[in-house]
């Protein structure tokens, strides 16, 4: 029971981490909370659902299609809703308000065109289980956890080992100076949104398979914000750690205390971190020598 709960928690935590990574990446570069990230996750899930149900694609192609679709949607979202504000050097509050507007617009667009019905993905994994230390756990849970780890490790390597990744980290420090190094900021920001969208696509598919696909499913990104704060805004390893901690805590609370109290614990954790450790577990150390 304990191990099953732990694996389920890690699986949910892995999905939270995938969402938190995208959210955290955009926050660290543009310094605003992209509340439209949840809507991109939701649209990514719908793209995956369409590929799975209309075109009968297998899991791999559904995932790839959702990654591409959500990535493109995220880039379009930036170009249409944020780039003109950026060019005019608008305060981040304006970007945040624009993001909220986008979230509401995209949700209602889905309501108006696809409807409010709940849809289920085909059962890619059936009810397959794997046995770990004598406990039976769902293949989907193990797969989601491992995939999240690999994806975030890949992103971590990209950010730390490539020229574009170095430019993203430089942009986090000082966007203006980054442009004075010869970096095309519009292109760099498009790459950041593409990456965030790609992760949103993966999260959308796993969320859709684990639960259902519906227009307000993106609101689960509230948990990604909590995970990002726990881990430290702007830190990718932090987003992973925050997501996993939150997923495990929630699952244990649901299993051993009460599922009604699950969100109470999550938001209490958020408040506790904001009060006692606002930089999170691995927040970016911006300390400089005077």
């Amino acid at each position, binding site marked *: 029971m304990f191990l099953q709960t732990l694996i389920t928690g890690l699986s949910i935590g892995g999905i939270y981490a995938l969402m938190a990574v995208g959210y955290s990446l955009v926050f660290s570069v543009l310094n605003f909370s992209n509340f439209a990230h949840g809507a991109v996750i939701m649209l990514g899930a719908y793209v995956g659902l369409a590929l799975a149900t209309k075109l009968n694609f297998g899991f791999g192609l559904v995932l790839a299609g959702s990654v591409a679709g959500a990535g493109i949607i995220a880039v379009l979202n930036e170009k249409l809703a944020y780039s003109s504000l950026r060019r005019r050097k608008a305060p981040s509050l304006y970007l945040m308000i624009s993001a909220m507007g986008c979230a509401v617009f995209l949700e209602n667009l889905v309501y108006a065109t696809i409807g409010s019905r709940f849809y289920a993905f085909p059962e890619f994994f059936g009810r397959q289980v794997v046995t770990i230390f004598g406990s039976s756990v769902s293949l989907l849970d193990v797969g989601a956890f491992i995939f999240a780890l690999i994806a975030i490790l890949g992103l971590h390597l990209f950010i730390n080992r490539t020229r574009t990744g170095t430019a993203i980290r430089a942009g986090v420090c000082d966007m203006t100076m980054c442009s004075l190094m010869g970096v095309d900021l519009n292109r760099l920001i498009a790459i950041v949104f593409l990456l965030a969208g790609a992760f949103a696509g993966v999260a959308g598919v796993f969320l859709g398979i684990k639960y259902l696909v519906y227009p307000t499913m993106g609101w689960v990104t509230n948990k990604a914000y909590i995970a990002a704060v726990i881990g430290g805004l702007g830190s990718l390893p932090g987003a992973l750690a925050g997501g996993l901690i939150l997923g495990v805590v929630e699952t244990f609370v649901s299993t051993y205390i009460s599922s009604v109290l699950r969100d109470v614990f999550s938001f209490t954790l958020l408040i506790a971190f904001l009060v006692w450790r606002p930089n999170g577990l691995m927040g970016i150390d*911006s300390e400089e020598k005077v």
Partner: protein
Amino acid sequence: MNALLVEDLNVHYGTIHAVQGVSFSVNEGEIVSIVGSNGAGKSTIMWTLAGVVPPSGGRVLIKGNPLPSKPHEIVARGLALVPERRRLFSALTVRENLIMGAYRRRDEESVKAEMERCFQLFPILRERLGQRSGTLSGGEQQMLAISRAIMSDPKILLLDEPTLGLAPLIVEAVMNTIIRIRDEGVTVLMVEQNATQALEISDRGYILEAGLFVKTGPGPELAMDPEIRRAYLGG
């Protein structure tokens, strides 16, 4: 030939007319200094030339061609800025800062050669390669800021207050390095608030007051001019 030609440059911040129709030129291989008190508009000119602050009027030519509007396009045309207070990427290491300086360059070998050139100018940077730049001393940070700009292989180097807050010995080292960079073929435009040493090493100087040039001439002559010394150079 003019490496840089600025004609009737105007810059506004809202209703504030920060730069009021200044015109100047920098010839290839020259060091030119713009000197003036705090708030005279010196840094605004530099940020405008780098493409960060848009001009409200006037014309800027780099080697006879109009200045592009975006900073990354300006860097591609061979202009690099070392800003006031360095503005290094503090969370990145010294090596990563240097690599960012060479962002537009694709040839790994020439980037390595350029890094060696920086180590010739500032040997201490080789020892600090893996250190986070935010933890360097002020002098080392300035050395890194200049090196980062050099990594782009600029034809024109803009230096905004390169000696601000540095100890006298470091100031002298920075000034000697600027001469060396010029001798290697890079045109230098520098703005300085405390300007005696800047004018002494400059081929020409311009005195800026409230957004307007009030005097120009050979750098060493301006440095010795009693009126200018009294007004701008602290006696």
